[in-house]
């Protein structure tokens, strides 16, 4: 019933989007063509890394180097931004994505003409407390986005993971299923179970039955899901980094300020680079290794084209 409802709904959305496209005037199309021309020059990098700035500033530089948000977000599109809002903790504790970064990403999306920008996470702690104490709820509202709940099973609809070895099906949040653009904004953290939590692990916040993952080889399930759901863009927040007691952390003592940001369309590449930042060999993080082996992305950083931007 729910699936059918959803299907009709998404077909409706598709028609609406199609109609929207048909009505775009020619000047704009010309502009976006121009933009994509510029992008093709700038966008030959597999990964963009920025260091030494404030979170919003680093994102500005990174997205400017790719020719602006218009590269990913077209007019009237529905955008979902998925930060990590898993814990009832203040921004200083770096358990959740930096609110300034989330805010800036939304602002760029709206500037690029997004119809709506929705933010959610299936939180671990009580979701209202997570949303407010992380500072993300306010950041989203200030930027003109919408914040939506993710803690009710009714939002989640069954999907098939064709290449999954263990995880063959899951239930995914309808906002993701209905989105044109999905921007994944994890924060780099130590994780006592999964070694590290970055882009791929952050996708556990868009599926319903996480206990299944934990029960049935967590690392394999993370990699399995990465073969299915590929975000449009991944922005790894490594401004403040939780080095121990992750992913929830206890106090600010677990956190060190690093001032990095990594951006890539390839989750595995982003996670491999972030692992390096953390001081780990990407191969020693099982889900990164398995995902690379399964072809979900590339972890051979030395063969990737990396745009390195330093802010001094």
């Amino acid at each position, binding site marked *: 019933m729910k699936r059918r409802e959803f299907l009709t*709904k998404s077909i409706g959305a598709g028609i609406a989007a199609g109609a929207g496209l048909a009505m775009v005037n020619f000047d704009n199309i010309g502009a976006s063509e121009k933009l994509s021309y510029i992008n093709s020059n700038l966008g030959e990098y597999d990964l963009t*890394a920025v*260091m030494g700035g404030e979170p919003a500033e680093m994102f500005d530089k990174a997205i400017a180097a790719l020719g602006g948000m218009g590269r990913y977000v077209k007019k009237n599109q529905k955008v979902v931004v998925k930060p990590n809002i898993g814990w*009832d903790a203040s921004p200083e504790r770096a358990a959740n994505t930096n609110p300034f970064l989330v805010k800036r990403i939304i602002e760029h999306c709206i500037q690029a003409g997004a119809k*709506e920008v929705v933010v959610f996470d299936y939180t*671990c*702690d*009580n979701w*209202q*407390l997570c949303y407010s*104490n992380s500072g993300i709820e306010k950041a989203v509202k200030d930027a003109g986005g*919408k*914040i*939506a*709940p993710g*803690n*009710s099973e*009714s939002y989640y609809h069954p999907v098939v993971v064709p290449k999954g070895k263990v995880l063959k099906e899951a239930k995914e949040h309808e906002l993701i299923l209905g989105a044109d653009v999905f921007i994944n904004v994890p924060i780099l953290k130590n*994780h*006592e*179970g*999964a*070694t590290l939590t970055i882009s791929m692990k952050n996708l556990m916040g868009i599926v319903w039955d*996480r*206990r*299944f*993952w*934990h*029960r*049935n*080889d*967590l*690392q*394999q399930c993370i990699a399995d899901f990465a073969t299915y759901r590929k975000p449009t863009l991944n922005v790894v927040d490594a401004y403040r*980094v939780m*080095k*121990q*007691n992750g*992913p*929830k952390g*206890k*106090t600010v*003592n*677990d*956190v*060190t*300020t*690093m001032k990095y940001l990594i951006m890539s369309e390839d989750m595995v590449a982003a996670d*491999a*680079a972030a692992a*390096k*930042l953390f*001081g780990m060999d990407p191969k*020693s993080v*099982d889900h990164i290794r398995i995902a690379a082996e399964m072809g979900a992305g590339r972890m051979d*950083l*030395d063969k990737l084209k*990396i745009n*390195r931007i330093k802010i001094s």
Partner: protein
Amino acid sequence: MLQRLKYARIFISGCVLIIVILAFLGMPGFIPNRFFVNFLTFLQFIPSSLKFFSVLSFAAFGFIIVFILSLLFGRIYCSLICPLGIFQDVLSRIGKRFRKRKIFRYSKPHNYLRYGILLITVLSLFTGSIFLLNLLDPYSNFGKIWSGLFRPVVISGNDILAHITEKAGIYWLYPVGLKALFWQSLIFPFLFFITVLIMSVGKGRLFCNTICPVGSFLALVSKTSIFKIKISENNCTHCGKCSVVCKASCIDIKIKSVDFSRCVGCFNCIHSCPESAINYKISFLKISSNKNIEPAKELSFKNNSGNEIINKNDESLITEKIQVDRRNFLGRILFFAAGSGFIYNKISAARIIPGNKSGKYNIKRNYPVTPPGSYSIENFNKHCTACHLCVSICPTQVLQPSFLQYGITGFLQPYMDFTHSFCNYECTKCSEICPTNSIIKLTVEKKKAVQPGKVIFVKKNCVVYADETACGACSEHCPTKAVHMMHYKGTLTIPEINQSICVGCGACEYACPAKPFKAIFVDGNPMHLTAFSSKDKKVKASTIEDFPF
């Protein structure tokens, strides 16, 4: 002037009812300011007196205010402050449509019943158990009804509405979601509600004047009130308008008398009287004069002998009844004591981990976990009236009404249910809202140092041990790292516990994915212990000067 008292009563009681109902519905965003809720629960007679006698502090003098108010004006508590009383007025008003006879009518008092119940309830307190009091306390039962029966309905309604509005892209309503609902714990509130519903729709405040021990106690107090509602002999025309609006059925118009011990102070009679004949009058004489002589005096004025006979009969019958009751109920009390002792023993004898065929271990708690701030299970059981205000307020819904987890002595008192949720580390809401002394107010810092239960790890049930795959869900959720992951095999890590820093929040148990039995759980501490804090050193500042790739 006094004829308008009715409107003041309706206004005040309306505000009280709305605030208390909103508190008990516990809808996030609609919970009234704690100041209002605490003020209203401060005035609730049973919770307030329990708190007073347990801390022996005048900080809990709410019931003394009620006592003084009753000494002055009679049982206005029943109409202004008692949420169950006000709720009955509403039910009665709605029920009027379905009632054949739209009016009330004088009825004789059920004195044996009401004072009998009061006596038994008071005597039962000497067994050290507030079980009977909890079954009868009007405030707590109002709470149980709204928290247990109406809250689920309202939340479900909200959730359905939220799904509809969200389809339209509006997110100001959101599904709240009921975490757990144990039907056993709803039986009593349901039966109580049906009783109150039938009694109030049929006979107004019959419940308050037959069953409610607070009503009966205040009835005794109001016999000596300074101001009483009386019918003025000269002005009364016997029209009976006051009698038919009296929901306490306490105005006998034939003899122009008001049974003030049953009057709940609704002021409907004062409002209804066209001659202003019924009103508050000072009754100094009654206080100073001899009880046996006084009615006779009035009688000689009234020239009505029937009245005196009724009064005398009542008095003598009550004392007789009390003597009989005493003998009868001593036996019952002994039974109660024995019963509670038996059940307590049964709990302590429960085993933690009996074996199981699958090679995994079933887990069973020695003790249920009481909320932080309750200090011990014994303290909690002694003081909690099971009003379920904390259950409604709890943002994570970890607090759930028990059924018999605490035995009969703790019937329906809340406990921490870790199968559906866990206690938020930073939250102290239940301790701030509790009207009795069962959950004593804690600061966040103090709460973090309390250990209401401690973690127990059952390695054989653990995914890491049994399947040799990564997990760490328990440690992930642990706020203190009392559960942390230690190197196991290869890249695998396995939980290790440190009970001394455990705060018993149950996050590990909630998060544990192991089936069919959890690999980690929290066992209650009968006496809450101290959770020591473990301070980790500040991590080294980042030394990377350049991109490491």
